[in-house]
C-alpha cells in the first residue's frame, strides 16, 4: 500500500497550501489550463500583432503577398501619421537630394520617399482632443455616478425605482438614432464642435451606466460599516470618503475602464458633431482611408497610438479590475 507521502492526498489539491504536496493530476490540470490560456491569448492578439507589424512596415512591404513576418522596420507610417507633407517635383527632388543640408531624422526619412515635411498633421491634436474629452467625461461620469449610486443605495428616495428605470432608459435607443436631433440641438446651443459639448454628451451617455454599475457595488458594502463610523463620531460625508470609497475601489476601477472605453471609442457622435476644434481620433483615423490613398502603415500607426492610452489605464487598474469586472463573483 502506498502512503500519503509517496502519492500525496487522494483528491487533487487545486489550491495548494504546501507546494510539495500537490497531486500530480492537479499539476497537469494547471499546466493544461495555462497552455490553453496562452493559445487563446495568442489567437486574440493576432489582430494587434498584425497592426503593430504593419505600423512599422514600408509601403512596399505592406502590399507584398504573402505578408512578411520578417522585414526591415521603418518609421514611415509614423511619418505619414504625424506630418503634413508635399511631394517634390522630380527636378526639386534631385536638387534636394544633392544638397540635403542640415536635416533631422524625420526630414531625411521624408526625403528618402521623395517628400517634404510642411508641418505637423492634425492627428496629434485629435489624439489630444480624445484624451481631453474621454478623460474628462469619464472622471465626471464616475464621480457623479458614485454620488447618485450611493444615494440610490442608501437613502429612501421617493420614486426610486422609477428614477432608476428612467436613468436606464436613456440607454435603450442606439446612439445613432438620436444623432440628428442632437445635431440640431447642438447647433442651436452653439455646442457643435466644442470640447464642452462632447464632454457633456459622453457624460450623459455614461452616467446611466455608471449609476447602475456602481449601485450594485455599493449595495454589496454592508451598511454596518457606515453605521459604525457614524457612532464613532464621523459625519455621513466623512464616512463616505473614509469607509465606503476605499471599499468601492474595485467597482470604481471597473466603471472607470468601461466609461473610458466607451468615450474613447465613440465614433458616430464624434463624426456628426465635431469637425475641426473638437474632432477626436476615431473619425480622423477613418478619414485617412479616403484622403491620400491607402496609407496602411499610417492607419496602423494611428490605431496603435489610439490603443495605448486605454491599455495603460487598464494595466494600471488591473489589480482592482479582476474583482471589479466579475461583479463581485470572485472573492478574496
Amino acid at each position, binding site marked *: 500500500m502506498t502512503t500519503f507521502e509517496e502519492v500525496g492526498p487522494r483528491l487533487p489539491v487545486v489550491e495548494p497550501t504546501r507546494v510539495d504536496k500537490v497531486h500530480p493530476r492537479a499539476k497537469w490540470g494547471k499546466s493544461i489550463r495555462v497552455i490553453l490560456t496562452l493559445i487563446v491569448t495568442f489567437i486574440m492578439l493576432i489582430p494587434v500583432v498584425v497592426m503593430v507589424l504593419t505600423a512599422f512596415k514600408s509601403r512596399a512591404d505592406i502590399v507584398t503577398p504573402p505578408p512578411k513576418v520578417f522585414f526591415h522596420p521603418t518609421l514611415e507610417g509614423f511619418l505619414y501619421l504625424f506630418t503634413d507633407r508635399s511631394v517634390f517635383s522630380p527636378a526639386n527632388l534631385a536638387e534636394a537630394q544633392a544638397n540635403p543640408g542640415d536635416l533631422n531624422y524625420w526630414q531625411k526619412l521624408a526625403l528618402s520617399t521623395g517628400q517634404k515635411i510642411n508641418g505637423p498633421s492634425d492627428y496629434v491634436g485629435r489624439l489630444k482632443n480624445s484624451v481631453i474629452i474621454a478623460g474628462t467625461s469619464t472622471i465626471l461620469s464616475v464621480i457623479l455616478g458614485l454620488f447618485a449610486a450611493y444615494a440610490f443605495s442608501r437613502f429612501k428616495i421617493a420614486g426610486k425605482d422609477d428614477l432608476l428605470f428612467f436613468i436606464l432608459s436613456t440607454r435603450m435607443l442606439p446612439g445613432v438614432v438620436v444623432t440628428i436631433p442632437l445635431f440640431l440641438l447642438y447647433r442651436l446651443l452653439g455646442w457643435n464642435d466644442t470640447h464642452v459639448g462632447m464632454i457633456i454628451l459622453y457624460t450623459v451617455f455614461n452616467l446611466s451606466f455608471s449609476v447602475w454599475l456602481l449601485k450594485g457595488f455599493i449595495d454589496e458594502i*454592508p451598511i*454596518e*460599516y457606515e*453605521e*459604525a*463610523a*457614524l*457612532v*464613532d*463620531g*464621523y*459625519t455621513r460625508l*466623512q464616512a463616505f470618503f473614509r*469607509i465606503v470609497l*476605499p*471599499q468601492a475601489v474595485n467597482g470604481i476601477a471597473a466603471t472607470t475602464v468601461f466609461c473610458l472605453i466607451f468615450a474613447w471609442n465613440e465614433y458616430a457622435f464624434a463624426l456628426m458633431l465635431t469637425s475641426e476644434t473638437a474632432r477626436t481620433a476615431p473619425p480622423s483615423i477613418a478619414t485617412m482611408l479616403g484622403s491620400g490613398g491607402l496609407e496602411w502603415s499610417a492607419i496602423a500607426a494611428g490605431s496603435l497610438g489610439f490603443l495605448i492610452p486605454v491599455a495603460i489605464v487598464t494595466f494600471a487598474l488591473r489589480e482592482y479590475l479582476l474583482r471589479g469586472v466579475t461583479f463581485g463573483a470572485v472573492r*478574496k
Partner: protein
Amino acid sequence: MSTIELRQVEKKFGDLHAVKPLDLTIQDGEFIVLLGPSGCGKTTTLRMISGLETVSGGTIWLNGRNVTWLHPSARDIAFVFQFYALYPHLTARQNIAFPLQAQGEARETIEKRVDEVVKLLRIEHVLKAHPGQLSGGDQQRVALARALVRRPAAFLMDEPLGALDADFRESMRSEIKRLHVLQHATTVYVTHDQIEAMAMGDRIVVMSAAEIQQIGSPSEVYNDPSNLFVARFIGSPGMNLVKGKYADGIVKMSGLDNNYAVPQAWKGALKKGLADGGEVIVGFRPEAAQINDRGNLVGKVYASEMQGSSAVLHLTINENEIIHIRTDRLIPFPLDTLVHFDINPQMARFFNPKTEAALKPEVTQ
C-alpha cells in the same frame, strides 16, 4: 458615567408598530439586557438610543440631555455590532484608533489610549492583521476595543456574541462581564439568549410583540414572571404551566386525579383575581417540584433526559399537557409509570388565563 432615559419612545415602520411606546430608565453604571425573541423590537430600541434609527415619538435623554434628534456622532455612545463591522481595509490597530481620529486627538494620545485598551483586552498579537484574517473571537475583541477606546458615555451592544461559536461565546461572555465590572460603564445589551441575559444583566428587560413584558433583576424575572410569556421564555425548560379550575382552596386540574391545595397566602389573591369560572393557570419551575411517593399530584412518565449536572423528567398529566421536573440524577422510571410529586409552596405561581398576567399574593403580616 451616565444615565439613559427613554420616555414614551416608539417606532413605526409604515403601519407596523416595531416598538410601542415604552418607558425605561437606565442607571449610571448599570448593565441592562434587552431580551426577547427576534422581531420583538429590542434591536430597534437599541438603534434608537444610538441614533442610527429615528424615533416616531417620545424622547431619549442621555445624562439629563435630550438627545432625541442628535446625530449619532454627537451622542457620545459606542455601538458593538453583531457582525463586528470592523473596517475591512484597515488593520486592527487602525480600526481601534479610528474613533479617536474623529475626535482629533493628538497622535501620542491615540497611541497611548490604544495601547491601554489593547492591554486590557490582551489582543497585542493581532494588531497588524486585517479583520478578515482574524478569528471571530478576536474580531469581536477588536470591536470591543474600538468601543472602549473612546471612553464613551454608554455602550450599546447588539447581540455581540451571536455570531460566535458556542465555546467562544462563553469565554467572551465572562470577558464582557469582567470588562463591565472593571469599567463600570452604562451598558445596554441586546440578546435573544435568555441564559446570556441571566448571566450578564443587572436588570433584564423582557420584550415581546413590540412591548416591554417585564423589567427586573434576573432572579425577579426568573422567579416572579409578570405574565405567561415571560414564564415560558425564561428558563430551559420554561416554567410548567398547568390549566385548572379553582374552587374552595383547591385547583382541580384536568386529566388525572390532580387536586392541588393552594398555599394559604394565595387563596385571597385567587379569589379576587380570577373570573367567575375560577379558571387558573398554575406555574412552577422544574426545580420547584419534588418527587415524593406521598405527594398529592401525579403524572405518567413520558420521557426522561440527562442534562449533565441534573436530569429532567417529563410527565404527562393529561392528553395535552406535559410538565418537566428537575431531579439531581437520572431516575430510570419505566415509561408510563405513575409518579407522585409535590410543588414547593414557596415557588408556586398563579396566572389568570384571560389576561395572561401573574396574580399577586396578598401581603401576609
